[in-house]
């Protein structure tokens, strides 16, 4: 097993996290993503989209664990996650 060298700056090593993309006008405000996000990252907004629904917004930008449950659960294909480029992590 390969041994990693001790990180230079342990604080800068983050768990990988996700960047959320919400296609607002596709959303029907069902709340599945909000309800099932294990990190409680999302919340329904007050804003109306073009169809008159309240799409979610990212309440806790940093909290997302990139688990992609929201992406999988959304019945409207309206939310997805990309892995954030971890500029701050030791290994790129």
């Amino acid at each position, binding site marked *: 097993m390969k041994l990693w060298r001790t990180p230079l700056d342990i604080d800068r090593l983050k768990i990988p996290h996700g960047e959320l993309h919400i296609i607002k006008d596709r959303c029907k405000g*069902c709340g599945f993503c909000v309800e099932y996000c294990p990190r409680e990252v999302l919340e329904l907004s007050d804003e109306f989209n073009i169809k008159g*629904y309240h799409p979610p917004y990212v309440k806790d930008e940093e909290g997302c664990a990139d688990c992609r449950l929201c992406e999988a659960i959304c019945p409207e294909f309206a939310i997805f996650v990309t892995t954030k480029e971890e500029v701050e992590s030791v290994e790129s």
Partner: protein
Amino acid sequence: MNKERLKPEHPMEALLRMDRMPHIWCPTCGIGTAVSCFITALEKIDYPLDKVVVVSGIGCTGRVAGYVKLDSFHTTHGRPIPFATGLKLGNPELKVVVFSGDGDIVAIGGNHFIHAARRNIDITVICVNNFNYAMTGGQVAPTTPLTALATTSPYGCFETPFSIPYLADSCGAVYVARWTALHIRRLTKSMVEALNKPGFSVVEVICPCSTLYARRNKLGTGLDLMKFYHESSVIKHGADTRELDIEFQKPMVVGKFVDRERPTFLESWNAQMKKALGEKFQPYGGSNEHD
């Protein structure tokens, strides 16, 4: 680690007909989630997607064929299974998936379901059980739980419903599972297993119709209902299929119930013809045809 895409687009778009979005499904309807799981499952099976075909009947769920960007057929109500049978036997190298509703599969289509299971036709049936005929406005179905209201059972359903896994099992399906639409990971896994399994495989997806069933039965929002089923359901792999009845607003059993081996229809055809005809048999289908 992936480079962030320049123009991020929804990763499922490649497998969806985006020019047909938004789809017709209501807010909080779980059919979309089931499709989402299906797309993920497709990405996980090791099969050329050009060779995967989706066949639907008619109904809300029946619209799935129209949204998935694969060769896809939206046929007649109740008959996706025999259409799929023709496709599969017509070209055995296809992977054929029937994605349709409970009415389609076990009401009008019940006979095809039991016979295809008996014959072990090598197709995967994904059946969305939303406890009613949704597309036509919420009529009672052979899956509606006892006492539930529906437009054609305005005083409460009084017919015992089918248990789809039990019916599938007793007719010989080789793979049978049930999940709610919100059992994302498990549902996806079952879809992958079903798609990889030769023979007649059945995945029942529970997602009560939020607009018609939930509203008429005063069960709150679709989210409430989905949560109820997701949270109250009991996972019991290998459960006795005789004990999978669904009662009105009671916890239900989910899991993978059947995973058995039986030769498929085409395997049996090839074996029997070879046995009877020897050299004279012109084998048809199977890998030899298309390698």
